């Protein structure tokens, strides 16, 4: 800034301008019994697949799930904020617990306020839950918020949504929903450079909320698509 010999240090910029350690897609779909969330367990450090066992889907209260993509440290911040909100409810001790829709609304307010201060929580969040009826909502770093029957964050919006659109019905059985979501995450693993094949599936139903342990999904890299030795120039529609 100054050309003088003595340089003055200015205060560092403490506002988030770019995400560093990031998670990729989170998928959410409503099905017959409730809502299902799915995501892989990878946190990338740019192009490095840095942390392989990051739980990007967490439970909030007794009937809600949150799935996050984007900056992992900001997700941890969001979980702290929600923990504070849950703790307030417990301390009020009036038997009232926040519904998934209220948690969604609360996050919307928080995310939008941070955006207005120019210091966003760099996440795209899915809020899923079941209270009398299934709930699936989206909130992101600029405060956009909406509810839908199926949502995908990040690359999933481009790769997974078309697959879901083809196969989604409101009365999908749990098995069908799992298969659909696994197929989507498999495609993510093939085509998203920041995805991994170690995934978690979570569901929120009338019976409560549960998150599966991570497991590895199958993939086939021998097909012509991925192997230059079996050139398929033109056969899958691509030229390279």
């Amino acid at each position, binding site marked *: 800034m100054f050309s003088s010999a003595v340089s003055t240090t200015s205060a560092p910029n403490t506002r988030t301008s770019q995400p560093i350690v990031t998670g990729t897609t989170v998928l959410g779909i409503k099905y017959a019994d409730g809502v299902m969330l799915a995501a892989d367990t990878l946190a990338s450090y740019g192009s490095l697949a840095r942390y392989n066992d990051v739980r990007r889907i967490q439970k909030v209260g007794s009937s809600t799930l949150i799935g996050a993509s984007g900056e992992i440290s900001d997700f941890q911040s969001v979980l702290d904020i929600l923990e504070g909100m849950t703790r307030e409810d417990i301390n009020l001790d009036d038997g009232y617990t926040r*519904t998934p829709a209220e948690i969604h609304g609360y996050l919307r307010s928080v995310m939008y306020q941070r955006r207005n201060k120019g210091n966003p929580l760099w996440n795209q969040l899915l809020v899923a839950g079941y209270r009398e009826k299934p709930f699936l909502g989206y909130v992101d770093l600029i405060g956009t918020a909406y509810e839908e029957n199926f949502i995908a964050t990040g690359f999933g919006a481009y790769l997974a949504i078309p697959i879901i659109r083809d196969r989604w019905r409101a009365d999908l059985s749990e098995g069908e929903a799992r298969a659909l979501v696994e197929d989507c995450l498999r495609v993510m693993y093939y085509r998203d450079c920041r995805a991994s094949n170690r995934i978690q599936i979570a569901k929120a139903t009338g019976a409560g909320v549960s998150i599966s342990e991570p497991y590895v999904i199958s993939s086939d890299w021998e097909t012509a698509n991925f192997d230059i030795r079996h050139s398929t120039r033109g056969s899958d529609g691509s030229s390279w």
Partner: protein
Amino acid sequence: MFRNQYDTDVTTWSPAGRLHQVEYAMEAVKQGSAAIGLRSKTHVVLATVNKASSELSAHQKKLFKIDNHIGIAMAGLTADGRVLSRYMRSECINHHFVFESPLPVGRLVVQVADKAQVCTQRSWKRPYGVGLLVAGLDETGPHLYQNCPSGNYSEYQAFAIGSRSQAAKTYLERKFETFMECTKEELIRHALFAVKESLQEEELSSGNCGVAVVGIDEPFVVLDPKTLQSYIESLETGKEEQQTMEETGTDDRQSLQVQHEGTGSRGISVGAGDDSPTDMET
């Protein structure tokens, strides 16, 4: 004897362990004109005795809508009551903005109570001089609460505050066990009977009382004078439907009905088989 020495400050205890300023504030509530509340499984009704300070003036507003699912009736310093209702409305709106859902009544009542408590523990403040009956709906059903200047609150099946509220309370104590199963119309009639008890000599009319209702799928609304007048008239004149309702009523009602027919001045009584009108006449 000791009262006058220890009652200057709200932050001074009396030797008997009392805060006289707080008690004086509650006295202000008792001086205000009556407010009554009662609830059933589906509705909560609030009713007030409206006093006009002179024949030339309109009467004071004592029923306030706080949100679609919450309303209050006040007794005491209505100016303090307006300030509290502004606070309550603000809290409800903020809750809607942040959580996109209605503020649970119980939580609002606790917030008001905590606000009132602050005024009992600051030397530069005075307690609010108004008692509130808070009627509201939440996912667990209809609720009726009372907020006191002391910072206390409690939930009620039915209650009355203000001057001559004891007469109304006596009526409510007699009838409250039937309230849970009442329809909205029956509940409003019970409320009007209770108001009548507090009015004693005066004739009940839409000019000297007010009624408000909130119910499941029914937002809080203060009844307009015309509707109110027709309810008042339905107390006095007999109606075919009322008699049929009587006859198909519960055992309680039937026994009361028998009693009523015994005294027999006005052939048909209305409202869940109670015999209040007859009592009033004799």
